[in-house]
């Protein structure tokens, strides 16, 4: 139990990093109603760009900015495939993700795995810093939870402002009711591209952060990213949906959903004496329980009411 508690900061840090990606996914999935499969590719793109630039001497903040910009480019590609070429959104995402495999490999110099030594380079976040903090070698300001937490809050603030502007409102309208949006003079095609760009920019940022955290960028690091992202979005909604009405808090809920996901994984690893080969099955069961409990609760109380307000409620 002790080791689980000690490992919690690591799980929380991982969750926060993936939370950035989940927030990006929220924009396309919930606001624009698009299932964007680009993310499996753009997540790795962010990691690759971030790592290669840092290794070439770039300041880590500029490397992150570059990762965001390249991520936005991938979103633009998917958007144009969908709006200008008429390809359904899911397929557009798949096509971009396919192409990104080769692009990512090329960015990493045709290597599948590019490590970045935390001793050699000044990284923003790293698994190492967690331990350094525990030993008193680093301040809380350098702790990944603080750094990524601040980044997340800043992002939420920016997004909250953006989606309150005229342009942001028109984006929300595009996702809510495209015909009405067009009738109000909104260029829905342009908005879809914009939405995809913003989303994938965030996904790439998350990839760049994770690559630093784990000290390497790997061609496969994005594999299954959309599943994790969607799980975070849905967990956040299910658990915090009733509490959080405000848009900013909804985004916070998404980030918390990602943290919960990774805490669950850590719990299964640290606490169960079960063979870790069953890890994925266990995680699926636990996450499934999370999602089912509110539904069962609702049904249970509904039943009690129908039976005339049973005393056993």
């Amino acid at each position, binding site marked *: 139990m002790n080791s689980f508690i000690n490992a919690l900061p690591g799980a929380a840090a991982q969750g926060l990093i993936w939370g950035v990606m989940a927030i990006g996914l929220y924009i396309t999935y919930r606001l624009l109603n698009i299932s964007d499969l680009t993310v499996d590719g753009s997540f790795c793109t962010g990691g690759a760009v971030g790592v290669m630039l840092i290794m070439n001497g770039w300041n880590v903040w500029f490397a992150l900015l570059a990762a965001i910009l390249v991520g936005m480019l991938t979103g633009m590609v998917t958007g144009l495939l969908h709006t200008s070429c008429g390809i359904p959104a899911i397929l557009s995402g798949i096509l971009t993700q396919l192409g990104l495999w080769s692009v990512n490999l090329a960015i990493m110099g045709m290597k599948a795995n590019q490590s970045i030594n935390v001793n050699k380079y000044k990284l923003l976040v790293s698994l190492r810093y967690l331990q350094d903090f525990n030993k008193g070698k680093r301040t809380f300001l350098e702790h990944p939870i603080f750094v990524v937490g601040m980044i997340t809050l800043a992002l939420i603030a920016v997004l909250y402002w*953006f989606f*309150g*502007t*005229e*342009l*942001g*409102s*028109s984006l*929300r*309208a595009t*996702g*809510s*009711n495209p*015909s*009405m*949006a*067009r*009738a*109000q*003079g*909104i*260029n*829905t095609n342009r908005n879809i591209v914009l939405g995809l760009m913003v989303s994938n920019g965030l996904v790439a940022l998350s990839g760049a952060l994770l690559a630093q955290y784990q000290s390497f960028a790997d061609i496969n690091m994005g594999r299954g990213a959309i599943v994790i992202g969607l799980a975070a979005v849905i967990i956040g909604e299910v658990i915090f949906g009733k509490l959080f009405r405000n848009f900013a808090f909804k985004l916070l809920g998404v980030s918390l959903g990602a943290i919960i996901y990774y805490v669950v994984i850590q719990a299964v690893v640290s606490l169960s004496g079960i063979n870790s080969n069953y890890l994925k099955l266990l995680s699926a069961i636990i996450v499934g329980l999370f999602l089912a409990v509110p539904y069962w609760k609702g049904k249970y109380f509904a039943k009690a009411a129908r039976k005339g307000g049973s005393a056993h409620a």
Partner: protein
Amino acid sequence: MLEIKNIFKTFNPGTVNQKTALNGVSLTLNEGDFVTVIGGNGAGKSTLLNAVAGTWLVDSGSISIGGVDVTHLPEHKRAKFIGRVFQDPMLGTAATMQIEENLALAQRRGKPRTLHAGITAGEREQYKELLKTLGLGLEERLTARVGLLSGGQRQALTLLMATLQKPKLLLLDEHTAALDPKTAAKVLEATQTIVSRDNLTTLMITHNMRDAITYGNRLIMMYEGKIAVDVSGEDKKNLTVEDLMQMFEKAAGAALANDRLLLG
């Protein structure tokens, strides 16, 4: 204000589902004309409105609004001239956004969307006043999500949004058809008020023959993609439902077999 010259539109050309929905329609509306459009199912009424709005482009012919040729403009570019209310109350508003946000979107129709605030405090006051005129209590619920409103309330809101900026052309596609009689009456009343107050050029499709006679200064009947009857002014005021049916039979050369038209 609206000039439609000889437009044609065929759906699914060359297949077994081919249908010529607009078969050479020409129509000129002067500023301030309030035209009611009636006709049987499949006559081409909604198609005509969609053609004007730009939901798709016509095969041939031309359309101009306020002197501007819009024949080749996409829907969102024509929107600055047009206010629309759809038949489906769900279509006219964004369900996940608030009432005031919807109104703010309509306020900015036709203008470029910048990074300025989506809605200002001054606007809120303005919207409150506007919503009061509907008499539905919506002015107290500015921040309620539109998805929570009833069909009638949403339709009234859509009407408000469509007329917020005094559009050059107002297109109403059976906008009360999905509402209960009481709400429908309210919405029609609101429509009349707004149209006469702002002198809006309006095309209103209706299945209700009495409404078609009562409202507007001109009446058009469509049949098989063409305009079969066009009555205005005094002639229109003196029409009865029986007159309409006779006119239709004459133009169509066939008995009228549509319950809704008969019983409306």
